[in-house]
């Protein structure tokens, strides 16, 4: 199916700007399919990603139809641009996150040390971090704990959602998940503290 015509988009927008209660439904019906197909075909998104980004775009328009300027582009182009930006943002953040999760040492790039420290200090921090990673890898921790530690490394303020996902706790009810995440985060931070201390003791 081709993307909806400019005229069709214009008619829908007029209805959106009036009191028409079914206009929102017709915007979904008209644009969701073409948007999903465009994202799958042009950006190589999976169906689920394309569906989520297309819905993001349509909901953004439904919330604020007045932000669409019909003199600048067709509604189809407007929604496609929003959906593509959403898909690109989602791809960038998932790629960066995967990269961080693969190697905690990227913390050095994610949260670089202060720019005013000397090269020697910078090298020293990097070496300490390398040693700490070796200790973590050699500590025989289960994969789940390593995933949790990666989140602690990678996110300055590790979010409950990221931690729950890493620890496989996302399925729990909200309150139970919050408590479990807090408990595990405290435990992992204690492990990290111990490993750091061991490194300092070995050094001295």
């Amino acid at each position, binding site marked *: 199916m081709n993307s909806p015509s400019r005229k069709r988009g214009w008619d829908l927008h007029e209805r959106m700007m009036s009191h028409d209660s079914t206009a929102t439904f017709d915007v979904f019906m008209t644009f969701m*399919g073409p948007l999903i197909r465009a994202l799958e075909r042009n950006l190589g998104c999976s169906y689920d990603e394309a569906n989520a980004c297309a819905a993001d775009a349509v909901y953004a328009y439904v919330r604020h139809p007045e932000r669409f300027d019909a003199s600048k582009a067709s509604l189809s182009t407007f929604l496609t641009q929003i959906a593509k930006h959403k898909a690109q943002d989602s791809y960038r953040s998932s790629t960066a996150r995967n990269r961080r999760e693969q190697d905690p040492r990227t913390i050095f790039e994610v949260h670089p040390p202060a720019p005013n420290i000397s090269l020697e200090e910078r090298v020293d921090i990097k070496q300490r971090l390398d040693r700490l990673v070796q200790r973590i890898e050699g500590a025989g921790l289960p994969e789940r704990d390593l995933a949790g530690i990666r989140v602690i490394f990678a996110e300055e303020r590790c979010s409950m959602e990221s931690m729950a996902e890493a620890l496989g706790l996302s399925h729990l009810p909200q309150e139970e998940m919050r408590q479990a995440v807090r408990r595990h985060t405290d435990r992992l931070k204690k492990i990290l503290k111990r490993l750091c201390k061991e490194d300092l003791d070995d050094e001295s």
Partner: protein
Amino acid sequence: MTNLDWLKRAAQRSTTEPGLLGQVFATYQTLEHCSPEALADELGCNEQTLQMLALCRKPTGEVFAEQVKAICERFGLAPLALVNVLRQVEIMGEMETTAANDSGRGVARLQLAARDRSRKDKPTP
């Protein structure tokens, strides 16, 4: 035939979108402890139509009646059923706000009171 694979997720998302019927339906289901199937039955439609309805704007203001009529004509619903759901959610919302402002003491009592005037109390012809 139109592929509506996206419909279910879009409708689920509408439950948190102010101004859409999806949010009204979600509130009603919570208040009445009813499933989507039960709500669809009450409105006289199937579940897919319920998902489509969820993506419509909530009728409101001076054009309430006109909007209800348009929705019902489009989806083949009886207006009374939809109006009952809309009014119940609206009344409960107002009562709970008032109750919360009164330090929340009367919430449970108000919920019971509102439930007393539910479907069972429809006037008999």
